[in-house]
C-alpha cells in the first residue's frame, strides 16, 4: 500500500464535496479515477497528496517528503524560468546543489523527448511540450506516488495519445504508483490496471473495472475487443452511478 483513503469525507462551506470514499493504491499500481465533472476527483487527489485534510475518515500515506508528485491539467510552469530551471526547481528546493540539479533536469528533459529545448521558456513551448516539461518536473524527484489530474485534457488527440504511451513507458522504467484522474473513459481504460468509477457529486465509489492487459499497452490495443468491452463496462458503471 502506498496511499489509502478510509471512509473519507470532505465537507466545504457549500456542502459535501466528497464521500464517504474508500480507495487504496498499491505500490507501482496504475489506478484511473473516472467520474463526471464536479464529483470530487480532484479533491480525492489532493487528499492522497496530503495537501488537504479530510473532514472525516482517515488518509494513510507511505511516501515521505518529496516522494509525491503532481501533474495538473495545465502545465503549471513558472513563466520566468527556463524548461531546465522549472524541472530543477523541486530538486533545488530539497537541497540539491544548483549545478547538479540542472544537470539532472537536462537528463529528465531528454527522457521526455525535449532535448534541445532546455533553455526555452514555457511561453515558447507548445501545449504538448509544456506538459512534457511538467511531467519531467514530476518525475525528477523520483516519486513513489505520481498523481495526474486530467493531464491531457487541454491537448489535441494525437498529442494526448503519444503522451499516454510515453507516461506508460516511463512508468515501466520507474515504477511509481500512479493515480490518473480523468473524465475520459477510453483514456482511463488505456492507462490503468484498475478503473475506479465515481458517482456525481458528492462523489462516492460507484464501482471498479479491472483491465487485465500488459502495460505498456501493445500496438493497436484500442481496437481490441478487450478494450471495447472494458470501456463499455466502465460506461455502464458510470451510467448506473447516475452520470449519464
Amino acid at each position: 500500500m502506498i496511499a489509502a483513503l478510509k471512509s473519507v469525507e470532505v465537507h466545504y462551506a457549500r456542502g459535501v464535496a466528497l464521500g464517504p470514499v474508500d480507495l487504496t493504491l498499491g505500490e507501482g499500481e496504475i489506478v484511473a479515477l473516472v467520474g463526471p465533472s464536479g464529483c470530487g476527483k480532484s479533491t480525492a487527489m489532493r487528499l492522497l497528496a496530503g495537501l488537504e485534510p479530510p473532514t472525516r475518515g482517515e488518509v494513510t500515506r507511505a511516501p515521505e517528503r518529496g516522494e509525491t508528485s503532481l501533474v495538473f491539467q495545465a502545465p503549471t510552469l513558472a513563466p520566468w524560468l527556463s524548461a531546465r530551471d522549472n524541472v530543477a526547481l523541486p530538486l533545488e528546493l530539497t537541497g540539491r546543489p544548483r549545478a547538479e540539479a540542472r544537470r539532472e533536469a537536462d537528463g529528465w528533459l531528454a527522457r521526455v523527448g525535449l532535448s534541445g529545448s532546455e533553455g526555452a521558456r514555457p511561453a515558447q513551448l507548445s501545449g504538448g511540450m509544456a506538459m512534457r516539461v511538467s511531467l519531467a518536473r514530476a518525475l525528477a524527484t523520483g516519486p513513489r506516488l505520481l498523481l495526474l489530474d486530467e493531464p491531457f485534457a487541454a491537448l489535441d488527440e494525437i498529442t494526448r495519445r503519444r503522451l499516454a504511451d510515453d507516461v506508460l513507458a516511463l512508468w515501466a522504467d520507474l515504477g511509481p504508483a500512479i493515480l490518473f484522474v480523468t473524465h475520459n473513459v477510453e483514456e482511463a481504460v488505456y492507462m490503468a490496471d484498475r478503473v475506479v468509477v465515481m458517482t456525481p457529486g458528492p462523489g462516492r465509489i460507484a464501482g471498479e473495472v479491472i483491465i487485465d492487459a500488459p502495460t505498456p499497452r501493445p500496438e493497436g490495443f484500442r481496437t481490441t475487443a478487450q478494450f471495447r468491452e472494458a470501456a463499455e463496462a466502465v460506461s455502464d458503471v458510470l451510467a448506473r452511478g447516475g452520470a449519464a
Partner: protein
Amino acid sequence: MTRLIDLLTPLALVIALLAGWEIACRVLAVPVYLLPAPSAVWTSLISDWQALAAAAWTTLSMALIALAIASVGACSLALLGGLSPLIEKAIQPVAVSLQVTPVIAIAPLVMIWTGLDHPGRAIIVLATIVAFFPIYSGAATGLRAADPDLQRLFVLYGANRWQTLLRLRLPSALPALIEGHKVATSLAVIGAVVAEFVAGSGGAQGLAWRIVESANRLQTARVFAALFTLAVMAALLFKLVDILERRLLAWWRGR
C-alpha cells in the same frame, strides 16, 4: 505609411492650435502679461533655457530620490507582510489612510518637522508619501498573485516560507511590482511639483518655484516656458518608464 500619418496628425493639430493662438494674440492685441503669444514663450524658453534645465533637474532629482525611498520602504513592508499575514493586516489600514489623505493637507506638518530651512527635504518626504502607496499596493497584490497550483507544488516539495517567498511569490509579483513603480513614477513627479507649490519658498528652486515666482511678477511667458519644460520632462520620463516596463515584462514572460 500609417506610422507616418499617426505621427503627423497630432503634430498638425499642435501646429494649427499654436498658429491660431499666435494669430489671435496679434490680431486682438492681447496684453503679454495676460496671454503671451507662442513666439514670446519660445523667446523666453530660449533665453532662459539654462535656468529652466537646472530647475527641471532639481524637480526631477527630488522626484527620483522620493521614488527610490518609497520603493525601498514599500517593498520591504510588503515583503514583511508577505511573510506574516498578521503584519499585512496591520499595515493595510495605515497605508490606505495615508493614501486617501490629500498630500497638501499633510504638507504644513512635514514642513515643520523637516525644518523650514530645508524645503527640499519636505518636498522629498511629501513626494515619497505620494509614491509609496502604488508600490506597496502593487507589491502586496503581486505577492498574493502566485498560481495556486504552483503553490500546492511548493507545499508538496516541502519548501519553507523563505523558499516560497523568494522562489515563487516574489518572481510571481514582478508584473504587479513593475506596474506599481510605473504609476508611482508619475505620481512622484506630481507629488514633487505640488509639494514645491506648498513649500512656496525659493529654498528649493524647482520648476514649480519658477512658475510661482514668474506668475507673481506677471512674467507670463516665463510661466508658460516652465510649464512647457515640465510637460516635456514628465512625458520623457513616462516614455522611458514605459519602455522599461515592456522590456522587463517581455523578459519575465519569456517572449
